[in-house]
């Protein structure tokens, strides 16, 4: 039982990374995904392993919840609200996606309006019951829904449930009596925080995907067990931790951003291994790019997330921003000849012109092919042959009107793509108050290594890193995941009127909840607890998170809490307001059960000089250069060479511009710096 397996189900491929504790060996492979039942691809991937009985753990990153939400393939949900508030998910917040787009259609919530019900009850912001819950009415509703049999799940969101959950808990009890077997999601359990619209959408999303996630997770567990796996089966949550597969069915909304978290976990461990404080990660895919930060060795979390415009999902997750730009982004000319890349994408179908699936519009991938940066015969390890002529024809559609060569237009496409990326990357950094020059850039995903050197150049970032198996880096990260439970609750207290007893009671309740969550999954030892406050100056609208070094509030230690906030605020914004009162918006508690991590194998030291496997004509801004091509599997620790150069491997190509150099570290990571 010494094998640990990470599996990442993607739209096109399912990635596998296997760590063998005994041999301290890491292997990676991929198979084509099977969207009708993703488990089929997993079973095919398992065939690569000689003895599945040796598997100790599987961590699965899944898109089942995300896809059900995005493609609106979830259950029919009844929404149950306080009298007067059933329209909250329909009204939303009133803003529009773009200022100047009269064709925009406002997103619909995850329920029909005819399935939105109201209950006579009301609690105010102090937790005072203004109108008691009418249990007869609840019972009648439960019976109606049961008898009609149309609704497959229920989402309950009552006003100020985060202050006083009694009414929601009663609703669940009554439903359990009258309509047992009807899944029910309570806003107090999913998201006990203020702002009823975000809580509504999050609770609805949970109810909406509960049946479909339940089916898929059961299918995964049963089929994999039937294949002979007896080890622990876990799912990846949006907060980058693993959760026992059987627990995933209870609150499936936590699987909304499952897959992309792996890369960030991998990045965090890589940063620790290499003693790098600040890393920005860039995962460039076909249609989109994910950006995340590791700051002072720690990944960043958020719950200010929108699945799509107007659909907030407020569950703890790793702060990953998605930009709508990738290898499939389409280049086009506007009416006066201006060149643009994106926001439209050729996606996987028809895909870039060079795929030969019928695409005729030029994409970033086509441009990279024309420039000689991608080897047409070696794409995806040679499993797919790219059509250079089709790429040239596509690029010519934007080159000819200007009288440009196809190469010049391709350079322009790549340059604009890189500039869009740098803008997006900078936006993420600036929003958090960081300077790009203080970061190293870690790129993975199929297209990341193609662009990393250009991005360093554009954004003035000193150092770029391409990890081992960049195409399966997320699955690799899964093998490093801990178990973790986060819980936050809105408390709305201020430094002037801070109720110590209430604060301690809430903090105790939060810590008990997260510890119990991990206990249920079998984690009782090696669990660390971190308490935190979300705070701001009274009247502001964005909070700063302050980790607490105390486990109880007392009259004596409260002053240090406020002092810490003033200090953290100044670090972030370069000023503070020591005489202002401070608002404590949320309290939070996180429990982490550390799980032992694989040791990264070291690469043997080889010849001091790396030898190129071949040479290729590659177009750079400096001109067409005779460029050495190295095979990644040939490289040994300690080797280095200067650009222009390419490093080819199974699913990606690393480009080194003239003026930059590449070095191979002890573990086989590639590092690019200015020469």
């Amino acid at each position, binding site marked *: 039982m010494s094998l640990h397996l990470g599996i990442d189900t993607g739209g096109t491929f399912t990635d596998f990374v296997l760590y063998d504790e005994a041999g301290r060996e890491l292997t990676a492979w991929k198979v084509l995904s099977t969207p009708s039942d993703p488990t089929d691809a997993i079973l095919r991937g398992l065939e690569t392993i000689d003895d599945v009985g040796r598997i100790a753990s599987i961590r699965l990153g899944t898109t089942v919840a995300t896809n059900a939400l995005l493609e609106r393939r979830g259950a029919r949900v009844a929404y149950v609200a306080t009298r007067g508030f059933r329209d909250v998910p329909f009204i939303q917040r009133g803003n529009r996606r773009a200022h100047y787009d009269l064709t925009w259609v406002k997103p619909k919530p995850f329920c029909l309006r005819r399935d939105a019900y109201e209950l006579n009850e009301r609690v105010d912001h102090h937790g005072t019951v203004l109108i008691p819950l009418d249990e007869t009415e609840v019972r009648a509703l439960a019976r109606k829904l049961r008898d009609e049999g149309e609704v497959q799940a229920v989402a309950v969101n009552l006003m100020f449930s985060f202050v006083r959950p009694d009414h929601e808990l009663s609703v669940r009890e009554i439903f359990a009596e009258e309509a047992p077997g009807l899944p029910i999601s309570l806003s107090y359990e999913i998201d006990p925080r203020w702002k009823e619209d975000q809580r509504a959408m999050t609770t609805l999303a949970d109810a909406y995907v509960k049946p479909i996630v339940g089916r898929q997770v059961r299918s995964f567990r049963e089929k994999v067990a039937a294949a002979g796996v007896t080890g622990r089966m876990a799912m990846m949550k949006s907060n980058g931790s693993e959760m026992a597969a059987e627990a995933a069915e209870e609150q499936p909304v936590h699987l909304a951003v499952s897959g992309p978290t792996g890369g960030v976990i991998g990045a965090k461990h890589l940063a620790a291994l290499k003693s790098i404080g600040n890393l920005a990660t860039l995962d460039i895919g076909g249609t989109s790019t994910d950006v995340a930060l590791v700051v002072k060795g720690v990944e960043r979390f958020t719950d200010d997330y929108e699945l799509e415009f107007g659909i907030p999902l407020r569950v703890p997750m790793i702060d990953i921003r998605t930009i709508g730009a990738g290898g499939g982004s389409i280049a086009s000319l506007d009416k006066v000849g201006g060149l643009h890349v994106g926001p439209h994408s050729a996606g996987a179908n028809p895909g870039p012109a060079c795929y030969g699936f019928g695409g005729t519009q030029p994409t970033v991938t086509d441009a990279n092919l024309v420039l000689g940066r991608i080897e047409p015969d070696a794409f995806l390890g040679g499993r797919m042959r790219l059509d250079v002529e089709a790429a040239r024809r596509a690029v010519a559609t934007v080159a000819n009107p200007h009288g440009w060569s196809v190469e010049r237009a391709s350079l322009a496409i790549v340059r*604009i793509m890189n500039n869009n990326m740098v803008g997006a990357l900078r936006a993420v950094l600036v929003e958090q108050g960081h300077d790009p020059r203080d970061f190293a850039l870690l790129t993975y995903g199929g297209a990341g290594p193609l662009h990393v050197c250009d991005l360093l150049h554009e954004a003035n970032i000193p150092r770029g890193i391409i990890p081992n198996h960049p195409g399966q880096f997320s699955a690799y990260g899964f093998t490093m995941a801990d178990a973790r439970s986060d819980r936050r609750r809105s408390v709305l207290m201020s430094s002037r009127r801070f109720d110590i007893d209430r604060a301690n009671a809430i903090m105790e309740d939060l810590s008990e909840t997260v510890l119990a969550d991990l206990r249920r999954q079998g984690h009782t030892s090696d669990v660390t607890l971190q308490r935190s406050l979300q705070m701001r100056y009274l009247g502001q609208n964005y909070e700063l998170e302050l980790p607490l070094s105390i486990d109880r509030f007392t009259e004596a230690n409260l002053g240090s809490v406020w002092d810490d906030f003033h200090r953290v605020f100044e670090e972030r914004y370069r000023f503070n307001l020591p005489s202002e009162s401070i608002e404590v918006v949320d309290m939070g508690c996180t429990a982490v059960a550390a799980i032992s991590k694989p040791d990264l194998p070291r690469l043997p030291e080889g010849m001091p000089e790396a030898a190129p496997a071949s040479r290729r004509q590659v177009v750079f801004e400096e001109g067409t250069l005779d460029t050495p091509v190295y095979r990644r599997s040939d490289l040994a620790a300690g080797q280095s060479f200067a650009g222009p150069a390419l490093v080819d491997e199974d699913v990606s190509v690393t480009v080194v511009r003239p003026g930059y150099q590449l070095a191979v570290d002890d573990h086989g990571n590639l590092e690019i710096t200015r020469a």
Partner: protein
Amino acid sequence: MRFSPNGFYIDSYGKCANCGVLLYDEDHALRHDDRSFCSEWCLTWSKRPADDASPLPLEGAKHTYAGATDVVDLKILDGNLASICRDMGTTVMRTAYSPIFSESLDFTCGLFDRRGEMIAVGDFCPSMIGGMPLIVRTIVEEIPLDEMHEGDVIVHNDPYRGGMHTPEHTFLKPIFLDGEIVGFAGAIGHIGEIGGMVPGSFYAEATEIFAEGLRIPPVKIKARGKDQPDVWRLMLANVRTPRANYGDYRALIAGADLGERRVLELIERYGLARFERACADLLDYSEARMRAEIAEVPSGSYGFTDVMEDDGITVDTLTINVKVMIQGDEAIVDYAGTSPQTRGPMNTPLSIPQAASYNAFLQICDFTIPKNAGCFRPIKVLVQPGSLLNVEFPAPSVGGNTECHPRIVYTVLGALAKAVPDRVPAADGGTWSNFLFGGTHPETGEYYTSYDLHTVGWGGRPGADGNDAVGSMNGNCRTVPVEVYETRYPWLVEDWSLVPGSGGAGEFRGGLGMQKTIRCLAPEIIASHVGDRHQVPPWGLHGGGPAGLASTVFKVAGSDVWADARTVYGKVSPSKFAHVTIRDGDRVHVAMSGGGGWGDPARRDPEAVAHDVAEGYISTASAERDYGSGETTP
């Protein structure tokens, strides 16, 4: 425009008799029949007979892009400038005190060249995007460049000199390189409270600007990097919430600081000459793109008229009349025939019809055109001085910005519907029903003010029903969640819902407005209201029906009757009134208009009608009356 001999105040505001812009150098302006003009074009236009429909091309047009800067370099430059503006905005949002920035996004940030021409603007408040160019041009006219120094920050909100209304404050920082001005970075934001007659400074019964809060001509709030304490003290002494104002001013200045820093970094990469050349080319490129868009609209003259109901002081309706003349690849937007300026605060300065006209064109065009001064060159806006939409000192204007802007947008769109019917929806609900209130919180003893916004239905459009509960066209604000609202203010929200049936009938139905009922929990709350569409509904198009009316009504504690402010508080207008005292137990109900319908209701898909009934968007009665589908419903 004539300043007093000592330069401390203005003696008279001279404007172009044709387009209405301020004439700073009146002595050298073109004169004809005792009237002054800003340009040969305006002089020629004004001499034409009113029925002359022949084209009069604008001066200096750039029909195609022929700049020295490669289009790829332009794209990169535009991306970099947009990124700077966005980061400036992020800085403002994250550090501001008032939720109006972070929640309502009622601000924007821009970059300007050394002449004050806008080269880029952040994608925040749409009314400010189109309004900022005029404001900055005024500042550059009034403060000689040799009196600006590195580290200066100029503040300005004067509606008679390019501003939009008194709450909108602009902070502008000159950018210096080697002792020479090379451009400006600026941030503009709606300050929630700036003194005047009522909390929130939205005095719906103002008859002079002096009731609308503190008016600030372009003055330095920072000089050579140092705060000017006299200016800070003067500004903060005249507002009800100095603590919040201080924080918000600082946030806007921080935005301008970031813009300055980042533009200098950009210039370092480009070199000054190349940077300035590329910026000028970027304006030409945007102009060419806007021209390419306008060229797709059939040439001709298209008129449209709508009315505002009243102005808070008198009951007379106010006409907004527009004639849009498309001549090839440019547009003349002429507001002749609009009512003269009125006594109440529904007037607007010139920046509003300019911004709203640009807004309307962007709604029907490829909106990815880089927004800058060049983009707006092919759209010439003409507003006679002294009209409702070009207010003269000292008439009030605080409500004109919020109420007239969305209505001007739709009046221009109404005209364009005759030229490009497949691109224009029916009217939206047209207002945010701005409900402002303040008082002392009974639980904390602290003073508060708030600015409530409400969302409307969009009009039906070719191919789709209107959206429900979305803000009107002048802003892109988010409403405040009920739980935040009740925690901060002494109201209990009893209802927060869509207004069924509020969308106009049509082949494509208008969207629904929202409504809310709130009950007062304090001994007293002082409230004001600025809205419209209480008497004249949003219009439908091509046979579509009008939307439902908006209303704001009260039920005083102990009474069973809902009635509007005329009955309950003896006000002139049901939608524009100030300073009413709401007491413990009193209720307020605000309901918003939906959007107008598009196309003949008889052509509506019967399945869509059945769906509307099942979902409660329309009643069974409406299905029968408006769509004749009653009998077929099982």
